[in-house]
């Protein structure tokens, strides 16, 4: 009885405290989200009629959409394991006593706050056809590479992504490592476990929940490289780095609402599937741990 009363009381206060957030959230996120999904089944945003999956069929037949989707897929598939691997290794290195530890950690998280727009000039100097990297290439006896206008452009964008994201993941891994009780390692050592065994059976196992989070965030952030690509290469960059967000932006500019909303809904679907897979695996993993 008392608990029920308490709940009721909480409910009223909750509604009151939550109201500002709920109104704004609904107006600028939730409603647009639902509207977008509805539009994707219509032949016009305002007052169109339902056309079923027509927009999706059109979308999947569009060469530029397929190109953008493939590019985004490969970008994510290559860079997410890379960023996780590098930041995990760094976290492991920094988990022990190292000289200049604080300075090193600061250097790695600095890129989080450095706006990409402010390093565009360096990027141009390095990766121009006559840029410094090509100068080094020639000096070492290789031929020049047109970095921004060839398949190599994806490498250049990947570098920015790695530069920007390594620090964030590293910090989360470091926190995860600190949460593993020290005695687990001591017990393993007493039992005569080797370094590799300890890493696989203790570190990796206890780091798995952290890993899920880092994986999810890295994938989400890899969908956001548009900002970087846009600042470095503009609206219509070289084919290889034409991402799904470029496609959506350009569909918006050309007022092609149908294709845009269909593409957006497909992307949402993909993200939702990813999130649910992660939650399912994590739940199973938690059961297994306890």
């Amino acid at each position: 009885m008392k608990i029920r009363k308490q709940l009721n009381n909480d409910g009223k206060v909750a509604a009151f405290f939550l109201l500002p957030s709920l109104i704004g959230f609904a107006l600028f996120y939730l409603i647009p989200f639902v509207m977008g999904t509805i539009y994707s089944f219509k032949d016009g945003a305002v007052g169109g009629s339902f056309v079923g999956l027509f927009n999706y069929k059109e979308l999947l037949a569009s060469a530029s959409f397929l190109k953008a989707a493939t590019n985004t897929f490969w970008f994510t598939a290559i860079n997410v394991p890379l960023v996780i691997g590098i930041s995990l290794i760094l976290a492991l290195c920094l988990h022990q006593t190292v000289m200049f530890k604080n300075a090193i950690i600061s250097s790695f998280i600095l890129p989080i706050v450095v706006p990409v727009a402010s390093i565009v000039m360096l990027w141009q100097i390095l990766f121009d056809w006559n840029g410094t990297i090509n100068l080094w290439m020639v000096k070492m006896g290789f031929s020049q590479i047109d970095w921004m206008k060839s398949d190599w452009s994806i490498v250049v964008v990947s570098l920015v992504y790695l530069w920007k994201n390594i620090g964030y993941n590293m910090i989360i891994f470091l926190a995860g490592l600190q949460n593993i009780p020290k005695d687990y390692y001591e017990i393993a050592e007493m039992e005569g476990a080797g370094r590799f065994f300890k890493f696989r059976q203790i570190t990796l196992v206890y780091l798995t929940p952290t890993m899920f989070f880092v994986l999810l965030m890295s994938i989400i952030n890899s969908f956001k490289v548009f900002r970087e690509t846009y600042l470095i290469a503009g609206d219509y960059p070289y084919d290889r780095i034409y991402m799904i967000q470029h496609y959506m932006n350009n569909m918006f500019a050309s007022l092609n609402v149908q294709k845009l909303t269909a593409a957006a809904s497909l992307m949402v679907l993909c993200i939702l599937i990813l999130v649910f897979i992660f939650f399912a695996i994590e739940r199973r993993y938690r059961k297994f741990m306890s």
Partner: protein
Amino acid sequence: MKRNTLIRKGILTFSLLLMAAIMVFPVVFTLSNSFMTENEISRHYPSESESQQDNAHKNSFIHLKLIPDQFSFEQYKAFFVKKQSFIDKEQSNMKFYGNSALMVIPIILGQLIVASLAAYVYGKLKFKGRDTLFLVYMVTMLMPFQVTLVPNYLIVDKLGLLNSFGAIIFPGVFGAFGVFILRQFVMTIPYSYIEAAKIDGAGHFTIFMKIILPLIRPGLAALVVLLFADYWNMVEQPLIFLDDPSKFPLSLYLSQIIQDTRGIGFAASILYMAPMLLIFGFAKKYLIKGIQLSGAKD
């Protein structure tokens, strides 16, 4: 044995320092080049079209240069003095600084208030459907901006906010990110604190003001840093919602400066990142704490 570990430690430290140097290099390079004279810049780093012409007769490479021939504040002076012409009127570079600030500061202040209230509810109060609602917040937080482009545009238009700072500020204020981060901090507060306050006769508002807010202060600081880093760097939103280039934030406008007046590009870049670097210097601790808690399991 001991010697081996010493060598191993040495190599490890060295490679870590090397990587750290690469991470900070863009900032160091931009800073040192910002003290070159405009003349040296145009001599040293010809713009793309010029270098293409050179390409015709002989490869003249752009050398990365770290130390200026002559140390000067010329670029900085020029940044403050130079005007950019827009269709009918001249604008000073400082205006774009102001634009950025006028968008970012209200977003941060607004989100601090709205999100801390919501975070208290999601973190400490119980009501039906709470977790489902929170999940909806989280899912939308993960979506890229472009996903809701069209309906967002229509709503902003309906509200009469198009081509005004409001079009950027309001969606920013209600972003779910702040709710997520602050909830993580609220969850670390023991229920017993709240129970004790209730026994003393405190209402929810008092509890929020006197217990929750003071205890999540590090969270508020972390949120300020993370929001600042995100919105100071925004590109997508102003690109869509602002038609008038004189309303652009510095983030978008900077690429124009770099194209049109390359000579002051480095100083402009440094001035652009300066507020971020300052905040980083003062609040690094909170930034790290915020990131850590964003990854913590509840």
